[in-house]
């Protein structure tokens, strides 16, 4: 039984709860500062296999294997890693019809202090669109819990990758 949502849920808790309610049981991660509290939550969960990987493209492969082994995989990542993953998303997930939900800290947008994050930040939604990857942008913490579940359902039913974009204001 899923616990009712606390009224004062934090952003990391919302992401974690969204994954739990979606039934995600296999998570690969590449760190982002915004994910620093989510990653330990996943790591502590005895019902989730957590695999820190060295690069997002590698994570796409590990998640594909996990799906083929009966798991519900998600990747915690920064949007810069979308660029690192393009070939695998197309020539593995889309070619074979392998679901994956990418939960993405979207840097380089409103409130970004690091100029190097801006180019990929601005390209992120365009990249997702050209790859025909459905993406969801929650408008609140509670909505993130919902959108992560919808994103997994979309990935599973469409046999394709999907994404949830979590921009800088979401984490405040």
């Amino acid at each position, binding site marked *: 039984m899923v616990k009712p949502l606390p009224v004062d849920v934090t952003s990391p808790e919302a992401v974690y709860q969204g994954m739990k309610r979606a039934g995600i049981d296999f998570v690969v991660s590449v760190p982002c500062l915004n994910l620093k509290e989510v990653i330990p939550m996943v790591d502590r969960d005895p019902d989730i296999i957590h695999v820190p990987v*060295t*690069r997002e493209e590698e994570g796409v*492969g*590990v998640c594909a294997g*996990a799906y*083929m082994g*009966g798991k519900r995989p998600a990747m915690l990542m920064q949007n810069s890693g979308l660029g690192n993953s393009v070939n695998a998303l197309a020539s593995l997930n889309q070619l074979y*019809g392998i679901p994956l939900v990418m939960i993405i800290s979207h840097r380089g947008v409103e409130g970004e202090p690091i100029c190097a994050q801006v180019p990929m930040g601005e390209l992120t939604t365009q990249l997702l669109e050209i790859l025909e990857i459905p993406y969801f942008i929650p408008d609140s913490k509670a909505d993130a819990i919902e959108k992560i579940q919808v994103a997994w359902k979309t990935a599973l039913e469409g046999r394709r990758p999907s994404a949830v974009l979590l921009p800088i204001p979401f984490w405040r």
Partner: protein
Amino acid sequence: MQRIDAIRDIARKAGQDDALLVCNIGIPCKELYSVCDTPGNFYMLGSMGLASSIGLGLALSLPRRMIIAIDGDGSVLMNLGSLATIATQAPENYLLVIIDNGSYGSTGDQPTATSKGADLAEIAKGAGNSRVCRTDSHEKLKHILQGNDHGIVVVKVDPGNADVPNISMCPGDIMRRFMAGSYQPSD
């Protein structure tokens, strides 16, 4: 020893041990398909570099099933971080066999860095893997495969491709057939 000789031995071990077998992109897939096509083979037709990663995900998800991945030197060099991730997870049901022919055999035999001295067995050890075997002998490969159900094997072979037909299955069929068998009989 040619690559197809090593693939034949690996496929035989997979059959004996009821292992699932992930095979690297390109002509290695076609060679495996020609020597032993079974539902437990996953032919990775794209995503160069990710065979060892797919194998790791399978091994962690199906801990009671033996998983073998066949990879190549050019592909491993493209995803060296995978060797470090495999070391951190170290699943005891996962055997990664890297067939090193020193060349990009599917694209015209351009030399890889292993032909100039890069040593994948040492790199695998340096990445933290404690169980790494290497050989360039066909007889020793058979012996290593008999005695190892997990870890990393680097087998040196001569460059060159066998003259084998294309895989006649589409990706969706490869996937459906593989998944239908991936929970049976061990799971």
